């Protein structure tokens, strides 16, 4: 277990060795209404966790709860061994939202977008200095966009825009990336470039929580899978255990064996049944 990560080389702050994210009996929602309840989840340094589940199951609510973007209604949430409701360093949790946040009404370059990720490190009035610009340039290089710094972001492809948002989180020296549907709307070739970029970050010790309804090209980098369904965590284990459970569940609910079962399973990306994958209609 490492004590520092290469993305945070110049802070010199010793990093706590405890869990990155720790939820106990946590409930999150909007207003008084809890959408996910009773979540126990501990993410340790270096883990690559996929949070899977059908649309509306509560996985986005769980993610936004971790990010402090909705109401924390019950239980405890700790980030880097600190109470999340009082922590002052939220930028260590690097949020990578869906790319549509880049389609703004004012043009901006990739570098300008990534530089906003640096702001939490500058205090109220600080300005970007030469070292900050270096961090921004390095973050763009890390996601393979070093040559596109001056490119206007809306002219980049979907996968490239996603990598700009990853670079923005890296510029804030995030120790854990929380990604919302990183493969949605990204074609297969770009998904592989994205997976390569993430694999490179994994080597550097970045922890990841990837919220998605389809694993796609990211499957090969995962160390753990958490399934959220109907507002609860219904599975938590390794990809291997997940495969086994999925086969068992499939077996239970399908007493009559069909020759097509194996083929079905391969074609179904996340869970054997249900509205897991919006594109799942085509698999039936």
């Amino acid at each position, binding site marked *: 277990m490492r004590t520092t990560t290469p993305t945070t080389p110049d802070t010199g702050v010793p990093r706590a060795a405890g869990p990155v994210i720790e939820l106990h009996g946590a409930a999150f929602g909007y207003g008084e209404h809890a959408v996910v309840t009773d979540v126990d989840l501990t993410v340790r340094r270096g883990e690559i966790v996929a949070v899977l589940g059908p649309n509306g199951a509560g996985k986005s609510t769980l993610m936004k709860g971790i*990010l*402090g*973007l909705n109401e924390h209604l019950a239980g405890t949430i700790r980030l880097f061994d600190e109470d999340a409701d009082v922590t*002052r*360093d*939220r*930028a260590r*949790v*690097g*949020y990578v*939202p869906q790319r549509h*946040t880049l389609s*703004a*009404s*004012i*043009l*901006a*370059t990739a570098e*300008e*977008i990534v*530089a*906003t*990720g640096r*702001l*939490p490190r500058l205090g*109220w*009035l600080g*300005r*970007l200095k030469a070292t900050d610009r270096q961090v921004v340039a390095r973050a763009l*290089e890390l996601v*393979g*966009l*070093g*040559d*596109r710094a*001056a*490119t*206007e972001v809306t*002219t980049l*492809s979907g*996968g*490239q825009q996603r990598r700009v948002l990853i670079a*923005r989180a890296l510029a*804030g020296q995030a120790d854990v990336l929380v990604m919302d549907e990183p493969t949605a709307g990204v074609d297969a*070739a*770009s998904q592989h*470039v994205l997976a390569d970029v993430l694999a490179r970050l994994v080597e550097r010790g970045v922890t990841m929580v990837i919220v998605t309804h389809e694993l796609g090209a990211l499957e090969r980098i995962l160390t753990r899978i958490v399934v959220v369904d109907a507002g609860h965590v219904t599975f938590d284990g390794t990809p291997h255990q997940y495969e086994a459970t999925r086969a068992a569940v499939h077996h239970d609910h399908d007493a009559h064996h069909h020759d097509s079962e194996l083929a079905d399973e391969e074609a179904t990306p996340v869970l054997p049944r249900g509205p897991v994958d919006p594109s799942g209609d085509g698999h039936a």
Partner: protein
Amino acid sequence: MHEILTTDFMQRALIAALLVGLVAPMVGIFLVQRRLSLIGDGMGHVALAGVAVGLVTGRGPVLTALVAAVVAAVAIELLRARGRTNADVALGVIFYGGIAAGVVIISKAPEGTPANLMSYLFGSILTTRTSDVWIFLALALVIMATVWVLWPRFFAVANDEEYARAVGLPVLPLNIILAVLTATTVVVAMRVVGLLLISALMIVPNAAGQLLARSFTTGLRWAIAVGLASAVGGVFISYPLDTPSGGTIVVLAVLVYIVTAIGTGVARRIRQRRHSIAEGHDHEHGPECGHEAIPHGDHVDYLHGGHRHAAHQGHYDEHGAGSPRTSGQDEEVRA
């Protein structure tokens, strides 16, 4: 010409126009970015109520307008932050309540003539007093200094408010400060541009700037240039034309926008005809794609099958046949 520059009221109007042309696009770019382009218009409505109170009580209408607009600005941001679904209805009540109260109160004021009302709504070169010039100068300096210090944060919040919240930027305070700057800009503009037209000077120069620029900072520079040119130019020609200065300024800004739109459109057509696109290119070039990287002006070409490919929007352009450099330089590019 000489007469225009030496006339007292014209000197004051030109200084006021210079200040408005400078600060309105500076604040407006963040409003456009947040898709709140018309909020300045609403603050102008409320400022009219402040003007009316000033006229009735015999105080300077500039300060009462400032108070009314700033109070409205803070109220608007707090309403928006509470995220109530009927927030836009609440804004409607504030805005129209403001202008209606303004019209009613002004009619009871000693100086409440219809001509007076028109000059507040649509601007006039005759109304800027010497004391106003000093107040406008002070307010404009405050706006410029605040934007200079805070613009990266305004940009971050306007670009992606949810992200800004997640990483702990002070989103609500920044939004309130931007709203107060908007209200202050409305007041700086109330003499020469008018309360109903100031919003145009926050938006139209930025619309033109977006056509000319490829980045936020250059977009803002172009917007300020267009804002300055139309504000000062509008005041200038409204004297010989004997037209309301606010209307003249905005017509000028819109003309600049139209000419820019046509010009950039034609330029794009010509460039499109000239540049050749690499056909059927589904490979993505990058520092690690294996193709030789060749620096080419402001971008990098990649040597691909004997052709130089440069990324352009969603495709790759052909930038001629390959001319590999020495390997040392290539190493540098790839590093």
